[in-house]
């Protein structure tokens, strides 16, 4: 029960300490981690935004460069010049040093192809483009950039076409997408990042690294027109979109957050490691602290219980003492009457005529018996009332060690018969104290005699004196006998309590000892030794009136 009680307290304390430590730490970890993650994602978004802006410029610049080239050419050369195959051939070689232009067409305003230079001359020559959408576009707007298509050659490419200012003809160039693609591929973020262009229908204009051929529904939903860069944050990815090329193409840049958050995770793991290890250290301290508190608590409780026990014992002894005194008094008066009346008879008897009183001797004997038993009873009540003790109101300086030595000299012979040895362990610096030497000696004698009676042959009585707290003397009488039964420990000082055989003891010795020590301002207590046997402990105050010694 007791153990459980303390165990519960311990558990509660440790639990409370742990909560105190772990809750704030956990909150700290969560908050830090989430804010760190947010910061990392924000950073990612910012760099994504910058990247897409840059790519937009690159794409626009690339397209514009092609468009400008064609615009310059149509501005420089009239239809008559470029309509001739030989001229176009030469021009093609001149402008296509980079190799990004696959072929060049020259088409008049009626859609008829006038000249062509490129690898597919046979299949294209003589074609009429008038009905083509792109041709109409160019004729209206002056220029056109197509979506990417595989065309006849099954190679992705797109077309840039420009009309001369008078719209008399159109110069059309097919651009190799490969170069264009390279520009985008270099702008990917992370290993699994994506960067590609789609047209309004969601068809990919440049290859995706992940092998996408078509946008999924989720991405298609992003194909709403918007100004500037739009950023969408999904569970695992962030998608940035930007419309380019007069809103015909949409530039997609995707980054996987998990992958991009690598540095963040590293920092977070470090933080968690530090926090967890400090938590463990704190937890250890908490356990130690709880243990410490519990030990304190336990010893305080024990002290209080002991004190309570002493108080109860003292109160009980006071009550018992008063009771015993009252009874003794009530008995003394009748005893007086008995002895007086018996005495009276014994005084009158000699006046009788012996011849008339047959049993005169018996009467005399009976009277003597009555007086004997009254004396016996009187002896007990007198002892109980402390009256048989010498009234020595005078106290004097007593050296307890000397007093013990004197007392031992009285009993040493008897101890010798019983083969009991008395071991003295005196404190050498024991101060003298003002007390009643003869009464104290009676107590010592009592305790030593009890010990000798108890242990019998071959026992050892340890008598120890120590000084405590500077103003107390402690005298211990310890024997190595059988000890005192636990149920008797509480009653051992009660008057008439005895464990000796009937008639061998009155049960007053320890009561009187208790009474004397109490009157001298000290305490007497009994306990069983762990090694067996009992120990009586007397604590006396050191009383030092003026000139000691």
């Amino acid at each position, binding site marked *: 029960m007791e153990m459980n009680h303390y165990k519960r307290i311990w558990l509660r304390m440790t639990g409370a300490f742990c909560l105190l430590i772990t809750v704030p730490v956990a909150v700290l970890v969560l908050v830090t981690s989430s804010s760190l993650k947010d910061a990392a994602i924000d950073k990612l978004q910012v760099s994504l935004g910058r990247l897409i802006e840059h790519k937009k410029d690159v794409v626009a610049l690339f397209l514009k460069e092609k468009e400008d080239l064609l615009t310059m050419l149509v501005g420089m050369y009239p239809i008559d010049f470029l309509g001739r195959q030989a001229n176009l051939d030469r021009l093609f070689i001149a402008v296509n040093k980079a190799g990004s232009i696959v072929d060049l067409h020259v088409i008049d305003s009626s859609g008829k192809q006038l000249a062509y230079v490129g690898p597919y001359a046979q299949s294209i020559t003589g074609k009429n483009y008038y009905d083509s959408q792109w041709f109409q576009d160019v004729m209206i707007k002056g220029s056109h950039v197509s979506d990417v298509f595989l065309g006849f050659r099954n190679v992705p490419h797109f077309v840039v076409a420009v009309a001369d200012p008078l719209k008399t003809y159109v110069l059309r160039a097919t651009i190799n997408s490969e170069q264009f693609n390279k520009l985008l591929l270099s702008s990917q973020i992370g290993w699994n990042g994506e960067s590609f262009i789609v047209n309004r229908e969601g068809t990919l204009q440049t290859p995706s690294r992940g092998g996408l051929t078509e946008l999924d529904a989720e991405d298609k939903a992003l194909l709403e027109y918007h100004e500037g860069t739009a950023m969408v944050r999904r569970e695992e990815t962030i998608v940035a979109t930007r419309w380019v090329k007069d809103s015909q193409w949409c530039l997609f840049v995707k980054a996987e957050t998990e992958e991009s958050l690598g540095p963040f995770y590293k920092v977070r793991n470090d933080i968690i490691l530090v926090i967890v290890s400090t938590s463990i250290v704190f937890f250890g301290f908490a356990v130690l602290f709880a243990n410490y508190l519990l030990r304190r608590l336990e010893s305080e409780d024990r002290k209080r219980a002991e004190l309570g026990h002493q108080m109860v014992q003292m109160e009980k002894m006071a009550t018992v003492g008063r009771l015993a005194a009252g009874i003794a008094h009530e008995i*003394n008066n009748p005893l007086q*009457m008995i002895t007086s*009346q018996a005495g*009276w008879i014994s005084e009158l008897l000699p006046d009788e005529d012996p011849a008339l009183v047959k049993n005169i001797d018996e009467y005399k004997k009976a009277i003597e018996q009555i007086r004997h038993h009254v004396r016996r*009873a*009187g002896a007990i009540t007198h002892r109980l*009332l*402390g*009256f048989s003790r010498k009234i020595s109101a005078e106290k004097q300086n007593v050296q307890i060690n000397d007093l013990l030595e004197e007392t031992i000299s009285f009993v040493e012979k008897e101890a010798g018969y019983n083969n009991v040895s008395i071991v003295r362990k005196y404190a050498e610096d024991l101060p003298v104290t003002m007390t009643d030497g003869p009464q104290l000696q009676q107590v010592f004698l009592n305790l030593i005699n009890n010990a000798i009676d108890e242990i019998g042959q071959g026992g050892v009585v340890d008598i120890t004196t120590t000084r405590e707290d500077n103003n107390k003397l402690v005298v211990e009488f310890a024997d190595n006998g059988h000890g005192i039964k636990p149920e008797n420990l509480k009653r051992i000082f009660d008057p008439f309590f005895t464990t000796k055989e009937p008639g061998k003891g009155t049960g007053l010795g320890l009561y009187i000892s208790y009474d004397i020590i109490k009157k001298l301002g000290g305490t007497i207590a009994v306990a069983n030794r762990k090694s067996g046997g009992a120990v009586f402990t007397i604590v006396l105050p050191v009383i030092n009136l003026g000139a000691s010694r």
Partner: protein
Amino acid sequence: MREFTVLVVDDEQEFREITVKRLEKRGLKAKGAESGEKALEVLEHGHIDVVLLDVKMPGIDGIETLRRIRGLKPLVEVVLLTGHASVDSGIEGMKLGAFDYLMKPIELDPLMEKLADAYEKKRLHQEKIEQAQLKRHMAMPG
């Protein structure tokens, strides 16, 4: 043994009576008084040598009675007798000049002894005073 007068003061009638009877049988003069007041009255009007005084009595108790006896008849010796545990009152009694302090139950022989001792003390005391008075008397020129 010289004959002297003892006053037995005790609130218990039986004790008083038997003690008076027995003392008289032993050849002393004895009287009884059931209270302190009564004892003082007897002392004032009669001749008493030794008082056997119970400590615990209704009315004025033994100690107070003793104090008044001291004032009234300083030469009278007082022996305290009680059934009580009051060591303190014993000490108090001795301080007030009681001859001794006895504890019930007590048999007649030791009691007689104490009373005789008390009377002896009183007698010696009285003798001294008488001698002193005689000396003074003689020293005075006729």
